């Protein structure tokens, strides 16, 4: 094997190649990717005074908080709008991936890129970020109880699984007014058919609270099965009440649970919205063929809201929020274009 110096021609070709790649790359980044604003300092306030006034006005009525997805400077920001069609959007400076609100508190889960990490922000009545929490993994779901006393988040934790490459979830209940941890669902006792039920592969996700925040519903995944559990916050217990009901969302009148119904197998899996009547446990599949990912939200006792993504590449992610009547009588309608993670608040 020789170890001769590369010829001058080859070195020159290499240098020209590197310069060429650098120029092409710079040109691409300059022209093809429009600048998006960088993350502001949340301490500086998330809204200006004018927006704050408009927002105080808006929050006297019913409104929806969501993640703005319109390409441009407001992309990814916590945004508010009234429930009227075509209502003006009040955009804050706070980037959020998952959002939920009650009438007095809000939770925003975000991916902070600098410094690297995942952050939860708690937002008070006056639209101030009162607390931030370091999250132990990727933001997945969040919910605040209607009485503002409890909140939950689910994150993906990589490397926490028993096979080195797998992913597992971590679900935590906390007080959204003080950021105090109430407990991780992993530490609650579970029963099935009255008997203690435990396994090391338990994963919990997708909490939804009752109005008084004493009880909640959530998903328990174990041994390849999806179970619906009903939990008691004070007793720190959960019991399995149904199977194949994933990522529940309790209706305001507490009569129905909207959920994601799983189809397919292996890695060819998708989810569509469905509703279960809690009095009869009868499941109704809804006329929505599109795939949904995030937890469903309720617009009112008869209608649900859910985000449908329509980006198919690594370019800026796009999604819209759709609405559907739970009687299944009418086709889905677009509720908010360029939005995801909707949270409906009614006084």
């Amino acid at each position, binding site marked *: 094997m020789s170890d001769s110096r590369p010829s001058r021609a080859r070195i020159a070709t290499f240098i020209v190649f590197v310069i060429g790649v650098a120029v092409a790359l710079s040109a691409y*980044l300059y022209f093809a990717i429009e600048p998006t604003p960088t993350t502001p300092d949340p301490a500086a306030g998330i809204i200006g005074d004018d927006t704050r006034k408009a927002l105080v006005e808006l929050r006297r009525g019913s409104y929806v908080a969501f993640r703005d997805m319109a390409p441009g400077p407001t992309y990814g920001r916590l945004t508010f709008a009234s429930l009227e069609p075509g209502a003006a959007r009040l955009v804050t400076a706070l980037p959020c991936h998952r959002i939920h609100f009650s009438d007095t508190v809000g939770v925003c889960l975000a991916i902070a890129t600098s410094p690297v990490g995942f952050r939860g922000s708690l937002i008070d009545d006056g639209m101030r970020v009162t607390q931030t929490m370091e999250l132990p993994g990727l*933001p997945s779901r969040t919910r605040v109880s209607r009485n503002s006393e409890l909140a939950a988040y689910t994150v993906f934790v990589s490397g926490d699984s028993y096979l080195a490459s797998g992913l597992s979830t971590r679900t935590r209940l906390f007080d959204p007014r003080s950021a105090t941890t109430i407990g991780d669902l992993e530490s609650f006792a579970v029963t099935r058919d009255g008997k203690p039920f435990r396994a090391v592969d338990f994963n919990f996700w997708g909490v939804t609270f009752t109005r008084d925040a004493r009880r909640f519903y959530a998903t328990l*995944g174990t041994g390849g099965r999806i179970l619906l559990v009903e939990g008691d916050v004070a007793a720190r217990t959960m019991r399995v009440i149904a199977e194949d009901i994933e990522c529940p969302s309790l209706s305001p009148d507490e009569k129905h649970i909207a959920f994601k119904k799983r189809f397919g197998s292996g890695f060819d899996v998708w989810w569509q919205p469905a509703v279960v009547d809690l009095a009869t446990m009868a499941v109704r599949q809804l006329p929505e063929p599109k795939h949904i990912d995030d937890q469903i939200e309720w617009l009112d006792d008869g209608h649900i809201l859910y985000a449908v993504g329509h980006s198919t590449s690594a*370019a800026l992610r796009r999604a819209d929020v759709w609405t559907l009547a739970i009687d299944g009588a009418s086709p889905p309608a677009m509720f908010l274009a360029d939005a995801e993670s909707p949270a409906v608040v009614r006084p």
Partner: protein
Amino acid sequence: MYPIDVAGLRGLLNRRSRASTRPLIARTVWLLGLVSCVTDISSEMISSILPVYLFVHLQLSAVQFGVIDGLYQGVTAIARLASGVVADRWRRYKLVATLGYVLSAICKLGLLVTGNAWTAVAAMLSADRLGKGIRTAPRDALISLATRPQDLASAFGVHRALDTVGVLVGPLLAFWILSSMPNRFDAVFIVSFAVALIGIAALVLLIDDRTGDASRARHLTVDLPGLLRNRPFVVITAVAALTSFVVVSDAFLYLLLQWKRGSGAETIPLLYAGTATSYLLLAAPLGRLADRVGRVAVFLLGQGCMVLVYAGVAVLDVGLWTLALVLLLHGAYYAATDGVIAALISGSTPSEVRASGLAALNTATSLTRLAGSILVGVIWSWRGPGTVITLALIAAVAAAVVSAFALKGVADTPIEAGSV
């Protein structure tokens, strides 16, 4: 008991004792180190952001993730072996390695356009791993064939150190891009692709793989049965496979540390960086030490480091300083074993089957590593982390003792001078 070369140790301290007309580290090795460094910047950019990209941007489900992982482990095992044999048979190490690098580069662009179709994403990730499996053995063969037999561990040490620079820089570059252009994953993929292209250009244009003999024109028969009859080769491979089996994967070690500390998953990237920094700093010096005082001795030293790591996790309260010490020893384990084993294998296989030998080593260690991870997973689920750490400590001690006896008869000096 082991051939610790005292004169060599003295020579190490007295740096001018060695007179040589050829540099210790061949130009080819430096250039291959550069190629690996650049390629690792490219691939680590992607792997560091992959969970966020898959689960937050594309909103793929985590349940789908586990399915693909087992798939590509099997694919790469076969590809590794095949690429080594083909490279030997055609004597085209650079060509086969280049194919591996090109395949991985294409996947960076592929991920950009496949979008959220899980099958396509899984295919791209598998092809990327396949490319890595293809390039490793021919590249290590190039390193060994460009190096004098007595300097093999030094050469691999330098190469692994340069490689680790890329492992550390890649994630920083990716996060810098995402913080200056939030949500623009396409920018990360494009930059990663461009960086990969530069690595390929360096390999193709700057590295010379003209072999010194006339065999280039004809296809050689690769004497694989002969390789299996080669006792030092078989013993070294078996010892390396045993070590990979008993050493718990990085992910599990970091989980054990978290379990001891009670800290969250957010610290895991820092633990990876700690091990990588220690590996980066120690790979070249320990490689040099291996060439001077004996590769088997340094390899056993590495196993000793691993025993100390487990003992530390089992016994000590993991505070900041003990954590630093554990990560230092963990990096030292890699520095004293990874390149040194490649050097031992290179020293014990004739040059005609060098890539096949290295490929067999890679295949054996990756399969036992996978088996070990599955076993650790089962024990962890069944008995919890406390049992894992106790058993890991016992297994590491046992592996070190078995290795010491098994390697006793292995000549530490090369059986063949390579084709230099």
